[in-house]
């Protein structure tokens, strides 16, 4: 049969078949044939993948960097995970783009440049200079090869060239520095008038019933009491559980016996050794010679020379030879099986025969013995009890949680079965709204569960909720009160206050605008102010770009004024109103330091903008595909 196929499988049919098989490999590679790693690719930049793994690493790094800004811990709610992810992805895509660009355009880093860079990395330095041994050790610990690490450095260098080739080469001419400083250092002398809304606030009595009623009718939706619920719940508290457990003396004794090892310090023996090293793969002769040397050393000791002296002279164990072969206190297992077997059967003062290990021949001398010591029951009783209590409580807790969850789930319309199965009481809460509550209502997790569709609309028990402090609970809604309008009497005072604020603001704005018109028409500012109800006085200010003597909006308006004498009005938050009139513009002469700083500022400004433009241009030119479904 095979022979037949072979005979026929020449000629074009065979080639056609082979071609057909080859096409998919050629197009999609072997990877896709074996299921491939396609799933982990979150984006492709000109066909080169950005992996999920890299993305996660980048997200982590950016989050850590953010956390550092907040002093180590990110406050909850600061972080928008989606935005963070997008930003990390953009960083990775841009890095990949730069890498490709550097490669295509032929940027390279020489071996010397890499070596220089390497020498600059502080962790590889010993006393301020590069230490090759340290370098090798650190890489080994990170499971990196020098080749891979240095290739990485070279890539980094090349990217830096590409970046600094844009950022660092942006010219900043002297006239530009001058122009910038003209604007930045400018001082504007202005007349400033602040009209506080409070000066126009009408007395409370002036606001009549009709106005209040009208406001109430018009803004019904603002005066609604929020939707609220009262909850029934079963709460499981691990702390309470631990207290309830009782543990008998007999049980503790039994535990003590079972865990005797834990409270025993094992036997320790102090020993010294002489090592005659046998190199790995040494011939029979060399082994024999080493054995003889070891025997010779033993004989010298037996003939009266001190072990200490012989060890100093002949031992090949560099670490101990200097201390007369002293190995310190040893436990079983410290030396390995062969030596343990000898050491732990010797009598104090004895010197062993040569013992063969992979290293060579050892002579051991036992100096002294510390017998094993066990702490008595009384001493460890409390520790034992605490451990046992914690363990019991934990398994009890797991069991109760399990029951709570199952019963609450199987009987979704009542908490009774869950309470009965766990022996816990059903408790009731105060009124809780979506936004706040007291007691358990203060916990966001509880409020979230209480207002979830499952609990609120379908009237079922909640899932098991884990509270931040380790307690767990199941809850259901006992009473529900939908959002409802509040009666006028309940909100009357608030409405009156609002109307007052509103009228005050309107008054101030209107007065301000009138004033503005009058001044623009040619009245003097001081004259116009005289009729105002407030004791508003015009003040002359010297405003710089960073002055905080006035609100930011006033300052901005002041710097937007066109020429001396021009005046503008600025409505402020809280209903106040401000008037600014430009008196004079002064441009102080900058000093050398200011010039240098401005030049650097402009350089980094243009450098950053230009680099951003280059990156965006590369992005626009590239074929970038983002697999949103895999993010």
């Amino acid at each position, binding site marked *: 049969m095979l022979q037949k196929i072979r005979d026929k499988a020449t000629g074009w049919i065979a080639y056609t078949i082979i071609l057909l098989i080859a096409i998919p490999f050629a197009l999609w590679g072997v990877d896709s044939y074996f299921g491939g790693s396609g799933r982990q690719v979150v984006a492709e930049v000109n066909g080169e993948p950005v992996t999920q793994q890299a993305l996660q690493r980048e997200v982590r790094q950016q989050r850590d960097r953010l956390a550092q800004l907040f002093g180590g811990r990110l406050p909850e709610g600061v972080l928008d995970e989606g935005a963070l992810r997008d930003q990390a992805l953009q960083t990775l895509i841009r890095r990949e783009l730069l890498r490709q660009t550097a490669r295509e*355009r*032929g*940027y*390279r*880093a*020489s071996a*010397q*440049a890499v070596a220089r860079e390497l020498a600059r990395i502080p962790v590889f330095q010993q006393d301020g200079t590069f230490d090759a041994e340290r370098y090798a050790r650190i890489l080994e610990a990170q499971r990196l090869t020098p080749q891979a690490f240095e290739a990485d450095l070279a890539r980094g260098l090349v990217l830096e*060239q590409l970046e*600094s*080739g*844009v950022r*660092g*080469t*942006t*010219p*900043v*001419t*002297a*006239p*530009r520095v001058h122009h*910038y400083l003209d*604007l*930045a250092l400018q001082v504007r002398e202005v007349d400033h008038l602040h009209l506080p809304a409070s000066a126009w606030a009408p007395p409370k009595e002036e606001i009549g019933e009709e106005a209040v009623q009208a406001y109430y009718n018009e803004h019904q939706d603002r005066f609604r009491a929020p939707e609220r619920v009262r909850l029934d719940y079963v709460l499981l508290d691990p702390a309470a559980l631990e207290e309830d457990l009782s543990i008998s003396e007999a049980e503790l004794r039994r535990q003590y016996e079972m865990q005797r090892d834990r409270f025993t310090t094992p036997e320790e023996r102090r020993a010294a050794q002489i090592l005659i090293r046998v190199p790995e793969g040494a011939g029979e002769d060399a082994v024999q010679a080493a054995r003889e040397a070891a025997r010779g050393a033993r004989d010298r000791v037996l003939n009266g020379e001190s072990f200490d002296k012989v060890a100093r002279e002949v031992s090949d164990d560099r670490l101990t030879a200097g201390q007369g072969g002293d190995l310190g206190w040893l436990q079983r297992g410290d030396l390995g099986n062969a030596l343990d077997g000898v050491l732990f059967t010797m009598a104090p003062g004895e010197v062993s025969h040569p013992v063969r290990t992979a290293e060579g021949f050892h002579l051991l001398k036992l100096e002294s013995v510390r017998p094993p010591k066990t702490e008595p029951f009384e001493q460890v009783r409390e520790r034992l009890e605490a451990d046992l209590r914690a363990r019991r409580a934990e398994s009890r807790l797991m069991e109760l949680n399990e029951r709570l969850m199952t019963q609450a789930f199987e009987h979704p319309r009542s908490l009774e079965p869950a309470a009965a199965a766990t022996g816990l009481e059903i408790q009731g809460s105060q009124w809780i709204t979506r936004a706040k509550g007291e007691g358990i209502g203060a916990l966001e997790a509880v409020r979230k569960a209480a207002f979830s569709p499952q609990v609120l609309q379908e009237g079922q028990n909640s899932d098991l909720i884990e509270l931040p402090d380790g307690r767990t609970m199941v809850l259901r809604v006992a009473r529900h009160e939908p959002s409802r309008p509040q009666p006028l009497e309940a909100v009357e005072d608030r409405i009156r206050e609002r109307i007052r604020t509103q009228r005050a603001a309107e008054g101030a704005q209107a007065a301000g605008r009138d004033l503005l018109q009058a001044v623009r028409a040619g009245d003097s500012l001081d004259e116009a102010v005289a009729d105002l109800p407030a004791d508003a006085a015009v003040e002359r200010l010297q405003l710089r*770009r960073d002055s905080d003597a006035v609100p930011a909006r006033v300052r*901005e308006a002041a*710097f*937007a*004024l*066109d020429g001396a004498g021009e005046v503008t009005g600025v409505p402020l938050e809280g209903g106040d109103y401000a008037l600014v009139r430009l008196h004079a513009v002064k441009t102080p002469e900058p000093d050398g330091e200011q010039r240098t700083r401005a030049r650097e500022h*402009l350089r980094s*400004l243009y450098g950053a*903008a*230009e680099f*951003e*433009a*280059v*990156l*965006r*241009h*590369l*992005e*626009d*030119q590239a074929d970038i595909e983002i697999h949103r479904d895999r993010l």
Partner: protein
Amino acid sequence: MSVTTDEERIESIQRWWQENGVAVIIGLLLGIALLVGWRLWSGYTENRVLQASDRYEALRDTAQSDPEAALEQARSLSEDASGTPYATLAALEWARLAADQGDLETAEAQLRRVMESAHHEDQAQLARLRLARVLLADDRPEEALTLLEAETPDAFLALARELRGDALLALGREAEARTAYDEAMMVAVRPSDYLMMKRDALGEPDPAGREAP
């Protein structure tokens, strides 16, 4: 199938060799020569790129400490490294150093060269924008404006519009400058303090058209 003896076979091989031997040997030698030549050539270019890279690194260091010496280094590198990417970087650095030291003529010449000869669009655009800045510093706003008329890729639009504003301002065409700045603010990722100050200094557009030319 014809039956051939070994002698006949040897004979036919010999005959073939006599006819084609020279061609085969020449072909082989040519192939080897090409291979060696290629290796030598690629070794040579590789070496040039690495040397240029090193010299560029050195240039960056010098530029920090001794701008005047750096000027000379940038000039020679931009000439020696032609054909490598470092020639362009050196030319840009040269222009930067010259402009910073007030030699606008040199800066202009270098930027013009990069703008006209760069292989990559982004570098040509950078050179164009920087050239416009140099022209403005040289009191030639008309020329800068003409330079900025050319079509600009989206990515460089924010920078180009701001410069256009600068040029118009220098020509005293304030209303147009304001529009240009406004456009720059719209497309910029993060408008700089400088741009905002320039825009603010031009005030609000006047609805009555008092300022319109």
